[in-house]
């Protein structure tokens, strides 16, 4: 195989060498991106298209007394203004949310529930005219009291959603585990550590904002180009909202300039563009502004209380978590319907808790809806951050080294499959090994010595550990669905006579490199050259049904489908091979990437030769060589890792410098180490941003304070640390190629490592916890408070 990346990644896997997998093959998709020939949504223009722009509410909570668009329609080039009145007339005023527990306004219907909510859509001949129009749409608002946090919401003084049957701001309660046994165990534990931990509101913020173009073609068929991580789900959602059957809808998701979960939801702008295209009989284009992008969804906003019981020797006895979730104005979380709080049950982490209990209550507030994703849709980040943060607090309380506390309580590798007290069955793992690799590689002992010296001099150096386990690969259809659709994925492989082929899946890469890794999986199974596979995703006319790419599910689900579809091809190929070699198919053995006649050395046929025969000499077999397969995974996969951060904190300014950061990931079998490493680098940078810089904060008036990149901070190359990586390999026993996943791991595992490191640096001052983001000021304030306390003694 040619074209291995020259810049060999640091990751050396422990897995055995293979033919096409496990190799750092350079990406097949890159030449177009490198030459500016990517095809992103705004690069697509249809003849006669109109431009749409949206009017947004400056109020977080208000009644709408009236909307006057007469001045706006005087702008040269103005075509139409649409409000909820028009949408309701077409019965598309509201959208079902993805997990089916709520519905969401397309355009504000009678009232606005959050700042920047969409109030009207304008359509014009030019983009500039559309933006001139939105300034002149007069909306008469009657401001209402703002509920800007869930603790205010739970009082129910102000009812935010009178449209719902239940007259309360409480959305749902969810719990898992054994409350009675957990309380009993906590009551008899030597130590009980309690901490309130907030995971702030953040945003995925891909560099390319969302957008779409809608056109009803001459046959009345909707051609819908849209930035979607899940095109098939969109098509089905459009069927459910618009009542148009799927054969009349084609959803095309072009190249995506990043997604990270932001391109999962169906946004009101999409519906308005389609409605406009339908009514005006012209193609309609809508591209988000950065402000629209940052104000239309969010991730996290969990307020968590954790209690951990432990014996005085440091053996964990019980875990209890109580969470208040802020869902914003609509319950638009894209979680599976049976899992309103996603996979939050992974909060027991890598540790063998005898008992545990997690309880969660979700509330409406006057904040943007969402709760979707940011390199982790399903609340794994919140859970992982909480347990890893809390483990350090327990270690501090017990005066133990945090690595020793973890070592003492890890689920042992012999315990897998491990049934957790919160109802997950972990597939495999070797936590202690991964931690040992990390500690060795970072030089933990030397770092502790250095830290001791520095502390003696009054310097603030910290070492932070996170030994996380996550749960990905949703999922098994008996548990998981989105809008009722089970979370399987399809794969289709067609081998051409030359031994090249085309691969289609229902997933959609946003930079993850599926065009390369999917080819590697299939090539590995068939002994063919991965360079000769075209990978096609994103067009619902051609791709098999699949739930899309988010929640680290592509490799666990679609990757499994691909391997099994390839094996299906291999079985058919065996028949053709037998015909060509004039033996019984039972005499054939698939070995070293070719069919061999058992007992007849040298009598072999390659897949390339079989492919040609499939079209030229199939015998009595069905000609051709292709397979379609839908894969319903038997279980989730459980990647894990150990991350270590080393920081220095500036006592005067509160500035944290991340001096080193090592990520040792165990993602099971690795398909392409170079790509895996790239995923880890990117996820760590996002984790770094969450730990230190990012937050969608709201002021008391309900103003969203993070509406553009001057206030929602994306780290540059200068702030971002230099990342170090390594990998261990514990294959998933149930996945066809033993793969787990990695896209989310760095973002799930790293925030705790950063925060643990800073708190470790401050621990000589008695600081126990600071909520993210750990801005300079927060760290400075913690240091000053501690110093003043000492001075007062």
């Amino acid at each position, binding site marked *: 195989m040619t074209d291995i990346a020259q810049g060999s990644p640091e990751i050396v896997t422990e897995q055995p060498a293979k033919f096409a997998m496990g190799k750092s093959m350079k990406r097949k998709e890159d030449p177009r991106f490198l030459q500016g020939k990517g095809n992103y949504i705004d690069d697509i223009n249809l003849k006669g298209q109109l431009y749409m722009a949206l009017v947004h509410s400056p109020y977080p909570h208000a009644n709408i007394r009236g909307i006057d668009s007469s001045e706006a329609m005087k702008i040269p080039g103005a075509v139409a203004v649409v409000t909820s009145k028009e949408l309701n007339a077409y019965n598309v005023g509201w959208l079902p949310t993805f997990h089916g527990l709520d519905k969401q306004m397309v355009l504000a219907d009678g009232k606005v529930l959050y700042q920047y909510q969409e109030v009207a859509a304008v359509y014009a001949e030019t983009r500039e005219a559309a933006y001139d129009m939105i300034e002149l749409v007069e909306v008469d608002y009657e401001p209402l009291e703002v509920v800007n946090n869930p603790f205010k919401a739970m009082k129910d003084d102000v009812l935010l959603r009178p449209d719902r049957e239940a007259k309360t701001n409480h959305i749902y309660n969810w719990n898992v585990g054994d409350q009675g046994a957990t309380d009993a165990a906590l009551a008899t534990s030597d130590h009980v550590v309690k901490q309130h931990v907030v995971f702030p509101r953040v945003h995925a913020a891909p560099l390319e904002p969302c957008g779409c173009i809608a056109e009803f073609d001459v046959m009345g068929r909707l051609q819908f180009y849209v930035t979607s991580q899940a095109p098939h789900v969109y098509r089905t959602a459009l069927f459910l909202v618009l009542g148009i059957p799927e054969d009349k809808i084609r959803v095309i998701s072009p190249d995506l300039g990043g997604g990270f979960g932001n391109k999962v939801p169906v946004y009101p702008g999409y519906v308005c563009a389609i409605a406009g295209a339908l009514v005006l009989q012209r193609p309609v284009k809508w591209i988000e502004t950065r402000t629209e992008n940052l104000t239309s969804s969010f991730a996290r906003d969990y307020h968590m209380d954790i209690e951990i019981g432990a014996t005085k020797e440091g053996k964990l006895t019980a875990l209890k978590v109580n969470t208040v979730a802020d869902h914003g104005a609509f319950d638009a979380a894209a979680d599976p319907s049976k899992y309103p709080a996603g996979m939050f049950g992974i909060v027991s982490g890598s540790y063998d808790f005898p008992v545990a209990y997690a309880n969660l209550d979700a509330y409406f507030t006057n904040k943007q809806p969402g709760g979707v994703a940011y390199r982790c849709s399903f609340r794994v980040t919140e859970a992982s951050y909480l347990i890893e943060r809390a483990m350090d607090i327990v270690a501090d309380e017990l005066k133990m080294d945090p690595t020793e506390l973890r070592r003492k309580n890890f689920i042992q590798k012999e315990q897998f499959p491990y049934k957790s007290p919160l109802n997950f069955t972990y597939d495999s793992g070797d936590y202690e090994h991964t931690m040992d690799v990390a500690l060795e590689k970072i030089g933990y002992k030397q770092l502790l010595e250095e830290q001791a010296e520095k502390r003696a001099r009054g310097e603030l150096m910290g070492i932070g550990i996170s030994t996380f386990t996550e749960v990905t690969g949703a999922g098994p259809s008996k548990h998981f669905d989105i809008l009722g659709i089970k979370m399987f994925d399809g794969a289709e492989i067609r081998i051409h006579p030359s031994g090249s082929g085309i691969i289609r899946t229902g997933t959609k890469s946003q930079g993850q490199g599926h065009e390369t890794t999917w080819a590697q999986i299939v090539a590995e199974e068939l002994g063919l050259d991965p360079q000769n596979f075209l990978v096609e995703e994103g067009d619902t006319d051609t791709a098999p049904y699949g739930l899309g790419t988010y929640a680290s599910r592509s490799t666990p689900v679609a990757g499994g489908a691909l391997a099994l579809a390839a094996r299906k091809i291999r079985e058919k190929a065996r028949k053709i091979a037998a015909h060509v070699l004039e033996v019984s198919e039972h005499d054939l053995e698939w070995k070293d990437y070719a069919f061999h006649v058992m007992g007849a050395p040298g009598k072999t046929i390659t897949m390339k030769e079989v492919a040609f025969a499939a079209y030229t000499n199939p015998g009595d077999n069905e000609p051709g060589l292709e397979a379609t397969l839908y894969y319903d995974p038997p279980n989730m996969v459980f990647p894990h890792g150990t991350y270590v951060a080393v920081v220095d904190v500036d006592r005067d300014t509160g500035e944290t410098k991340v001096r080193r950061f090592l990520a040792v990931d165990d993602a099971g079998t690795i398909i392409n180490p170079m790509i895996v490493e790239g995923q880890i680098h990117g996820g760590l940078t996002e984790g770094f941003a969450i730990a230190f810089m990012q937050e969608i*904060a709201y002021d008391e008036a309900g103003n969203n304070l993070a509406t553009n990149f001057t206030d929602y901070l994306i780290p540059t190359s200068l702030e971002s640390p230099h990342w170090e990586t390594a990998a261990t390999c514990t294959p998933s026993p149930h996945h066809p190629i033993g793969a787990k996943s990695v896209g989310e791991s760095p973002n799930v595992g790293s925030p705790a490592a950063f925060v643990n490191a800073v708190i470790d640096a401050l621990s000589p001052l008695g600081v126990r916890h600071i909520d993210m983001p750990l801005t300079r000021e927060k760290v400075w304030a913690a240091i000053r408070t501690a110093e003043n306390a000492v001075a007062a003694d």
Partner: protein
Amino acid sequence: MFPASFEYVRAHSSDEAFAHLQQHGSDARVLAGGQSLIPAMRYRLARPAVLVDINPIKEFSYLREENGFLVIGATTRDAQLEFAPFIKDRYSLITAVSAVVADPIVRHMGTVVGSICHNDPAGDWTATALAMRAVMVVRGPNGTRQVPIDQFLVDSYTTAVNEGEMALEVRIPIPDAHTQGSYQKIERKVGDYATCAAAVQLAMNADGTIRQAGIAITASGPIAMRVAAAESMLVGQRPTLELLKAAAAEAPKIASPNADQRGSSEYKKDMTRVLVGRGLKQALERLGVTA
């Protein structure tokens, strides 16, 4: 987003630009680098009816030393200072500040004069101009006049440039061999406005006493401010650690920063102290003087 419509006029000479500004009065804005103006226009927070583009005026782009001053023309970009070898050799404060203004790409369009005229409360160049005791050259109806920087900076986004007038250049006294500076800036990330910053320049006498001190803080009030008390405390003295500490302690006394996402007022005030202190130390280090 897309700006509101405006009339664009191109000036090819100082006279032409001046004539346009006289004609359009308060409706017109000068377009130099545009790096603050254009984003504000894209948000439609700024919507001048007329933009007078001075970029085509060839004679406005210069960076030279004359008559004891470094003179910087109206369209001279930040990056020209950042990369000029003679600046790197002899102007430590300018070298330091020119590497941290906005971001590296913005610095290729952004201008020093434009930034001073914008007079943002968190301006880097305004603080630097104060510390180096710059003089602004303004063209008005009665010809050009020189305005010392302290009088030039009037209030947030307000300068001594009146309606219909324009600033032509900034003149900075050339530091001698016994003069060094330092720029200390805290920003949340590259490209953000300063959370707090301090510009410091010290000139030494042969006897080891401080001849002249320029100390200014920014993002600490409505405009960048001179810490005059600190300056006078230092002049004529031999630098000691106690003296530097006392001088730095003067900064928070005049600071009145707004609380915002960058930090509380208390934090920013304390940072004026920390950053002035660090700036003084670094300037002395560059002078080879141990306090």
